[in-house]
């Protein structure tokens, strides 16, 4: 069976090779200038001898694409049937199965069956079926050969492309020639230990600018944003005057934070840029941290534009780093109470603002009851989950807010329900502690508990019993891991203390997965998780626990 495949393939060699040429082009595009890199190429004399034989490279390529990566559906089937050690027999699952590169033999490494085969037949080389590494029996070790490595990589790349984009391969970083040069010139490496303070830096208050400082602390401790900025991915759009670019300024800020310096940083340039680009925030009076956060994201998003592909045509689908990290989609289902028809709209969001205190429904009920013994069928939210529950509850819009129903063709009473269509990587919650009306401004200081780990599954559109959307079900590994997609972990909390007129902002940020620090302008102190969870909470930042690489 295997033999027929190995030989039978040579008939359509010409089309195969043309195909390979095409793939090479794409492969080179991702491989940059790796090809020109000359490593100490050959692993050993045995590999050299093998490559020099007539069928050497061809055998390697065929075995690699059919058994190591199993490029087609048929290949997968063949592979599943071939996963047998010829010595152990079909009843035993082989551990570290290897294939001889000279003949049709499969043997396990665990019981040294592949070694025995090499010894008796003098077939020197075997390939690890799981990983594609080449083992040389005379050398008693795996060998590295750049040519074989290249063929293997190309086959893997091809297989991943065939698998579709849903699970695009995650590539490990390999330095280009240029980067190698830079690495050589800068031989000093910095390793960050678990108790390092690197990444922590106080920020000088420039006169009521704690609203900015706390947001900067939250942003600089957003894991994916940090990865983006520290890996220098920004391509600036301000060719004439890069000093006007807020993204560039953020890059410099990240450099400052991770420079290892311990003196407080003075963020005047950032403040100036935000003032320039978000005029409504200009001035030295105290501003709302939430407003500043949204304005900053907006300016960053605007300054990223164009650098990330062709999405300028569709303003609702931006792939800039800000949108990649912070944008989620909210589904709104309006149900006509007369015909029960549902109209669904989906809107992007950067954060979720949650109401505190009694709901409108509660206030109406309370007003209606004249006795001192007031009755109400719901209570004020006491936790983040309560808030989210209220946020996603169907709401009766009442007779004064009729909406035109597309089926009935007239205005009808309806209910509206919100739910999460797509969750962002970073979920930011804004607890609406500040109440502004034309008669009064007041702060709600009620304690709202929030968890360290948050599961958003109950608030998903797919779970809410709304109209199921027509999207095909997303590919999933299994039940367990699909649920994991909705799990979040707290990494920053912004707090407001004092009154609405004279208040002060501070932030808690997480470092190294489980250490917490309180950032009070230029003063940074260690804190416990409990300190964080006991705090009042104004803005809560959660990061997805598990990421699928796209």
């Amino acid at each position, binding site marked *: 069976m295997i033999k027929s495949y190995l030989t039978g393939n040579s008939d359509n060699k010409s089309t195969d090779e043309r195909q390979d040429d095409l793939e090479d082009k794409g492969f080179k595009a991702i491989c940059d200038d790796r090809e020109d890199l000359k490593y100490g190429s050959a692993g050993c004399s045995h590999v050299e001898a093998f490559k020099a034989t007539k069928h050497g490279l061809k055998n390697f390529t065929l075995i690699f694409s059919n058994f190591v990566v*199993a490029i087609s*559906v048929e290949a*997968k*089937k063949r*592979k*599943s*049937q071939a*996963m047998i050690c010829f010595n152990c027999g*079909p*009843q*035993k*699952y082989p551990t570290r199965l290897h294939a001889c590169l000279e003949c049709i033999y499969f043997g396990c490494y665990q019981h040294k069956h592949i070694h025995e085969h090499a010894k008796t037949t003098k077939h020197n080389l075997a390939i690890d079926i799981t990983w594609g590494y080449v083992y040389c029996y005379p050398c*008693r*070790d*795996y060998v590295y050969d750049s040519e074989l490595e290249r063929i293997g990589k190309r086959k893997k790349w091809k297989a991943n492309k065939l*698998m579709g984009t849903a*699970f695009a*391969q*995650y590539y*490990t970083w390999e330095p280009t020639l240029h980067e190698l040069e830079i690495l050589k010139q800068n031989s000093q490496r910095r390793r960050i230990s678990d108790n390092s303070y690197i990444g922590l830096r106080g920020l000088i208050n420039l006169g009521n600018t704690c609203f900015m400082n706390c947001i900067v602390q939250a942003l600089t401790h957003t894991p994916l944003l940090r990865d983006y900025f520290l890996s220098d991915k920004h391509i600036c759009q301000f060719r004439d005057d890069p000093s006007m670019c807020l993204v560039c300024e953020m890059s410099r800020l990240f450099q400052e934070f991770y420079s290892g310096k311990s003196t407080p940083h003075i963020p005047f340039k950032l403040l100036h840029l935000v003032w320039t680009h978000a005029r409504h925030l200009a001035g030295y009076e105290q501003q709302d941290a939430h407003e500043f956060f949204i304005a900053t994201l907006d300016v960053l998003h605007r300054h990223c534009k164009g650098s990330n592909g062709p999405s300028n045509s569709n303003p609702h689908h931006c792939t800039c780093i800000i949108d990649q990290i912070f944008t989620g989609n909210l589904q709104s289902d309006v149900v006509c109470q007369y015909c029960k028809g549902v109209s669904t709209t989906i809107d992007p969001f950067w954060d979720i603002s949650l109401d505190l205190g009694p709901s409108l429904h509660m206030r109406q009920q309370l007003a209606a009851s004249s006795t001192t013994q007031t009755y109400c069928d719901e209570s004020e939210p006491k936790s983040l989950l309560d808030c989210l529950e209220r946020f996603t509850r169907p709401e009766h819009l009442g007779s004064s807010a009729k909406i035109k129903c597309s089926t009935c063709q007239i205005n009808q009473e309806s209910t509206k329900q919100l739910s999460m269509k797509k969750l962002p990587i970073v979920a930011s919650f804004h607890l609406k502690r500040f109440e502004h009306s034309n008669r009064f401004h007041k702060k709600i200081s009620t304690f709202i508990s929030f968890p360290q780990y948050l599961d958003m599954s109950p608030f998903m559109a797919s779970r809410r019993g709304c109209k199921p959307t027509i999207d095909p079900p997303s*590919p*999933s*590994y*299994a*039940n*367990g*891991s699909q649920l*994991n997609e909705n799990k979040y972990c707290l990494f920053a909390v912004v707090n407001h203390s004092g009154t609405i007129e004279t208040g002060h902002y501070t932030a808690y940020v997480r470092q190294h997965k489980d250490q917490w620090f309180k950032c009070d302008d230029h003063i940074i102190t260690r804190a416990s998780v409990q300190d964080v969870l006991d705090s009042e909470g104004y803005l809560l930042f959660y990061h997805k626990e*598990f*990421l*699928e*690489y796209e």
Partner: protein
Amino acid sequence: MDLKDKIDPMIDEVRHQAMRKLEENGKKDELKRMLRNRLNENQFDEKVAELCKNYMKDKNIETLTVDEILRNVTPEAHRIVPDSVKRELLTAIKGLITGDQQ
């Protein structure tokens, strides 16, 4: 020890069938990818590389083999796989083998 000898062949048989099934429908690649992502998130690669480097530090590179490194590093490497990752993978495999897609 006796009991283990009796159970092992059976487990092996089940394991073999399960693996074959996962290999055939391509789910094994998905699982591998998921595992890779999870380990990556936990800096598993870097940690294992560190273990290897530590082991190799005072060894003769010319005679050192992958086998030897493997023998010495594997127990510790197994230990540092986070429990949550093991659990998630197990649930995923269970789901795929019993075939209940939701």
